[in-house]
Structure formats: C-alpha cells, structure tokens
C-alpha cells in the first residue's frame, strides 16, 4: 500500500517541460534507418484505458530524466507496445548520482547504442511481480544481461539499488528504483 501511495505521489506533479515527439531529439546525423523507426502505440489516442508505462512515466515529475533518455534512445514507442514489461525506473535523483558528464555523453546521438544498452538493462519482457520473485533470482533483461533480485522480507532490491515504489501499468509493471542499473562489463 505504501508503495502505491508513493507511486501516486510520483504522479502528482506534472512537468510541463516534457518534450513532445522523438523528432525533436533527432539530429541531422540521424540515419535513414532511424528516421523510419516511427510510430508505435505511443501515438494511439486513448484517454480511457489504463495507462501504459510510458504514459505513467511521462506523467511523473520524478522521471523526467528517464523520459528524456527513453526519447533519446528512441524507445518511447517500444515501451508503449503490448509488452508486457517490467521496468526498473530510476528517479531523477537516481540519475543525479551518475556523474553529469557521463549522463551528458550518453545523451549524445553518437552514443545512442550505449544509452540503449543501459536502458535495455532496466527492462525485462514479462511481468515480474514481487510475490513471484525469490531472493537471489536472476532476471534476463532486454539487453541480454541479467540482474539479480534481493528480497529481504518485503524489501526488494535489484542488483544494488532499492525498489522504492511499485506501479502497475496496462502493459506491465514499474518498479521505481533509487539508483541507475549499470550493465556489467561483458
């Protein structure tokens, strides 16, 4: 219940600074291949259905950095799709723990693959509800690497970061986390 309340609090303040459309973040250097990657369920006008992960994240003042990163990585469409996904969603504070230069570099077009890799490490295909997780369990993430779940009573951690809220979405589950998950070096 606490988790839910926290999740709703995340939603309470709506940022007016959220950008619209991935075209704004596409530079002239974007390849033709990228330019064709247009149109997912993100564009579907539907104010009746339960919100998907992207709509929840867009509506959360605490996730503006994540939303900007999803846009830069061109993953807004993907995470709007049917999924289902489990997304570990770092808060702005969590991103703030990453050195600013590192973050700025990742947001450059030429580093899109590296950004995609990090974001994919926050997304699992499948709904991993807490009551189905076990301490020490690994979960395969979209980038092909695994995270490890730590479960101590009700306290859920993924790798070394804490899950601070759980928000169900129409296409999966958001675990709000207080740190950014960094993929282990291969």
């Amino acid at each position, binding site marked *: 219940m606490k988790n839910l309340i926290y999740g*709703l609090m995340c*939603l*309470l303040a*709506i940022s*007016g600074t*959220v950008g*619209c*459309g*991935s*075209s704004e973040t596409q530079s002239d250097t974007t390849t*033709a*291949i990228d330019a*064709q*990657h*247009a*149109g*997912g*369920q*993100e*564009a*579907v*006008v*539907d*104010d009746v259905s339960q*919100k998907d992960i992207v*709509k*929840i994240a*867009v*509506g959360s003042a605490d996730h503006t950095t994540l939303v900007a990163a999803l846009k830069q990585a061109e993953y807004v*469409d*993907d995470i709007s*799709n*049917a*999924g289902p996904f489990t997304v570990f969603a770092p808060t702005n504070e969590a991103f703030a723990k990453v050195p600013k230069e590192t973050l700025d570099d990742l947001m450059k077009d030429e580093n899109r*693959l590296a950004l*995609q890799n990090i974001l*994919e490490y926050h997304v699992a*295909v*499948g*709904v*991993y509800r807490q009551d*189905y*997780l076990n301490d020490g*369990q*690994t*979960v*395969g993430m*979209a*980038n*092909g690497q*695994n995270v490890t779940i730590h479960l101590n009573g009700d306290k859920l951690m993924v790798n070394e970061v804490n899950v601070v809220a759980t928000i169900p979405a129409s296409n999966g589950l958001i675990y709000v986390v207080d740190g950014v998950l960094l993929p282990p070096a291969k």
Partner: protein
Amino acid sequence: MKNLSLVLLVATIAIIGCKPKSGVSVATGDAATKVYVAPGTYDEFYNVVSGGFSGQMAIYGIPSGRLFREIPVFSADPETGWGYTEETKGMLMTSHGFVPWDDLHHPALSTTNGVHDGRWAFGNANNTPRIARIDMKTFKTAEIIELPNSSGNHSSPFITENTEYTVAGTRFSSPPDYQGSNPDVSINSYKENFKGYISFVSVEKESGMMDVAFQLQIPPLNTDLARAGKGPSHDWFFFSCYNSEQAFTLLEVNASQKDKDFILAVNWKKAEEYAKAGKGSKKNVKYAHNYYDESKHTTISEIKNEVLVLDPKELKDVLYLIPCPKSPHGCDVDPTGQYIVGSGKLAALIPVFSFDKIQKAIDAKDFEAEYDGIPVLKYESVLHGEVQKPGLGPLHTEFDDKGNAYTSFFVSSEIVKWNVQSLQVLDRVPTYYSIGHLCVPGGPTAKPWGKYVIAYNKITKDRYLPTGPELTQSAQLYSIDGDKMELLLDFPTTGEPHYAEAIPAELVKGNSVKIFKIEENNHPYAAKGEKEAKVIREGNKVHVVMSSIRSHFVPDNIEGVKIGDEVYFHVTNLEQDWDVPHGFAVKGADNAEMLIMPGETATIKWVPNRVGVFPFYCTDFCSALHQEMQGYIRVSPAGSSVPLTYSTGKVTKEAAK
C-alpha cells in the same frame, strides 16, 4: 481517488499535446497504384492465412488484400454445414469424440524439390492436436489426422522439401498416452513423468494421405516452431524450444531463467531408417484419422491404435541440441539450406547457425554437455554469426530471392531486413502494431518469389474505424522490390491470423475445380436425377433423397413424418454449372444450413420436436426464382396413420378446386 483522476487527466492532456509521427504519413504517394487490381483482373498471389482461434484458413489476394474465401478446417461452420452435415461430422472426430473447434496457427504449402507445387496446404490444430490437409484444387479440407502423445501442437505442420513428411512437436509436454489415455499423475512429477514428442507424419506422394510414421520421444521441453532443412540440409529438421528449465507453473517467470534454450536438430532421414528397421517400440495409443472421399462426398473416419516411438537417447545420431539464447520462437532455414536462424523472443541478438559447422561439430563430437541424455553442441562451434542489436523481441524470419532475411519484432513492432551472409542490418520499417508472423511469398522455401513482405499484427488499436472492444485483426503489405521496404496497404483479416504463406496464382488457379461431375457421384443417397428422388422409411429414420436444381426441390411436399422420427435430408445439387451452389435450410433445425456444390450430395439431420408443417428453402441465391425454391414437410403425432407421401408439382383434385 479524486486526486488520482485529476492526475490522470492532466497526464492525458500532456500526452495529447504531443503530435508523434503516425503510420499514415509512412505510406508514399504511389502506394495505391501498387496495390490496385483493376476490376475483373486477378491478384498476383494467393495468400493462405491461418485463422488462429477461428480454426479456419482464409484466402486473400495479394497485393489487393481482398478476402476470397474462408475454408472451414477445424471449426464447425454453420454457414456451409461443415461439421454439421452427416458427411462432414466425421472430419472433426477425435479420440476425445467430436471436437468442433480448434486453433489453427500455421499453414504449410506443399513443395517439390523445395519449391511450391500448389497441391496442398497443411494446417495445425493447437488444442486437440491434429494436422489437416487442404486440397488446393477444391479449397476444401480433405483430411485430418490426430496426433497421439501430443498436447499443444504448435511446431507444426511444417514440411520437408518434397513433402515427404509434415511434422508436429509438442508445445506442452505431457505424460504419454500409452494404454490409450494419459495417466493420472501429479503435476509435480513433471520431470519424471512428462515427455515431449516430435511426430513425423508421412504424406503419400500422389494422394497426399497422411500417416503417423514415427515419433521421437524428447525431454519435457516446449517445442515451439520448426523448419525443414533444404538442399545440403535436406535430411534434417530444426525445432526451436523454450522451457529448458522444465517449469510447469508460472512459465512467464520460470521458463525465462536460463540464458539459453535450444534448437533441436533432428536427422529425420536417420530416424526414418531406424523406424523402417524396427528400432523403435510400438505403443498402444488412440487417435483418429479422417479423410474425405470425394466420390462419395463423405468422410471416412477411423480410430488407430498404434504408433512407433523412437528414443533418441538410445539412437544416438538422431537428435542434437544447439544452444540458442532466450526462449527461441522462430527457427527458420534460409533458401540455400545452409543457415538456421533462431529468434529468441527475449534475446538481444539473432544467432545464425551454419549447417556445415553443425555437421563438422557432430562429426568431431564437439559437445559441451548432455541434456537429459541428448548431446548439446557448442554454441560457438556451430555459429555462423550474430545479428547485433537488431531490435527487441525477434520472432520470425522469412527470406527473399536476393540473400536477405526479414525478421519480425514484436516488442519493437517492426520488420528488420538484414543480409544473411554479412549479418548487417539493411533496413527497418515499423508495423502497426506489434507484428507476430510475417510472410514473403515463397519465403520459407528454396525459391522465394520475393516482391512483398506481409506483416500479421497482433494489435490493431486505432488503425481502422472502431467497432467496440473487439477489433478486426490487421495485416500490412510492404514492397521489398527496392533497397528500402515500403508500406503499401493495411488490410483487415478474419479470425486471428498467425502464420501465412503466399504462392503465385499461376501455380494454383488453373487447377481449381469448377463442378463435381454428377455421373461420378457415388454417394449412397445421391439423387442423380429427379427420377431418383424418393423418401424411404427405415424404422424411425426417414431418408429424404432430394434433388435441387434452379428453381425447385424434388420432392417439395413431404407427408407422413411423425414425432419420434429422425429425418435425413440428403440433397443433391443437380447443377453442372460453375458457381451455382444451392443451399438447404429447414425450420427449427438445431444444427445448421448446408451449401451443396454442383454435383455434390450433402445431408442434414432434422429431428422434429413438434407437430406441424415446416417449410424448407434454398439459402443460396441461385436464380431469378430463388424465392420460389421452397417446400413443406408435414409432421404428424407419434402413431399417426398419415401415409408417407412425397411429390413435386402434384396437386390433389380437392386442393385444385
């Protein structure tokens, strides 16, 4: 709660304010001319599309996307009478009795030397495992065979290069059916008692008749999809599988634990040799085999009781496992037969395996381990290479005639074109939305026809005018003639299409049957002319041997039927004219109408439950006097003395006054 509503409202406004690119702008200006098939002219390809949960198959034209026909296969169809008429009920018989529905996922078109030959389309039943054979001359289901020891017949009915075999692999492992039924064991005994099976169903070269030739018993994996080898890999069949964890609950989590599952490489030629040499064990099982006798217009349905099972743990050179990342779904073999593409639906890359390397590794016994007694090849030893970062959620791959592959991505909702040799991504296009299977004409064969790729999407959302909560399913046609894929057309589809194949119209249309010759009709109750029409009583069974021709039935007045009788209307369509079917329906029938093709006989059973006079009529608009094509049957109380009489055009003197 109020707060929540407010938040959602505000969030919605924020989103509506955005104007993301939509698919509308993706189709270019000349797309319409590329899909335009002028009135009276023909499409270039037949598209044979599975109906999924409709249990049927549907035929579309490509490039127009026009729907021509839904072929009843595994599901009873009151529109045609399929599964309701006495002649077709037997086609849906199984060891479980009459099963009037199934879930048809994959068509497989017959090939000769790896090239489409236009003879048959096979289809799988997922739920009560069966394989159907559709005759491409009549577009009717000609045969259905049930599969013993099987649950969840998903990796089916893919075929070998010369249609020697169609296969079936179990998506759900189960305790075997030995002794005729699957035993009562604890689900928790999965690892001990559950087995997977791969069935090789032989297809007789001339007639197409199917027979379960042999089965391989495999560990309790979930086999998913399959493709036969071709050319150099002709003797091999490849099956993808997931759940190497052998989970039996919450598979969403528990079958996604391991980093790699397997592609099963089966040397079917070797297995065939062992089967012929009697190296397997014959098991007592129970399964139905039903086929349609076109001369009698009737199903022959039989129950079979024996199947030959081979054990690859003992027959060491029949089955090898290839590690494949993350729950592979598609398992597709390129036109040269040299490359096998595994698409792990949770994987971040697409591995492409080399048939030559697989052979070398097998010869050198270059195994990394055994899995339940089956040798596991080393991933690196058999890998041609990996397509890096292709997209999210790869599912299926088809091929063109230029060495390129087209892979569907469910999660990232796109088709990605890549080169099989270089493994470089060449192009990508979005699909609206969340594509499942895709189809290049001839894409799974040794001779792809190229030209188009068709996406079969799982989510429709806002693509068409809304029709309430349930929307049409959606296909999308793309041109692949140039370097870049180009979206040409959205077209709605019926049922829930999974896989589809497309075949040049030239290979099929000339063979299409127009009529059944009346003189070759050997149905026991055929009325081959109006003089043969009659009504026969056999105890409480009343057989109405009826003819139909524009625009009357013979007989059309029937009296002397009583409560307690079972009436069989055997209606022969005497027309010998293309596209003049007649229909037949009688008031109060609790089953269906039936459509009778020219020269055909079909029978509907009618058990009157009340006294009275009941009209029957032709349901298929046949002629200018179609509305006049009717008759009456009188039902009297049990024990009534009304004599059995029948006539057409006869009026008593009293009535004439």
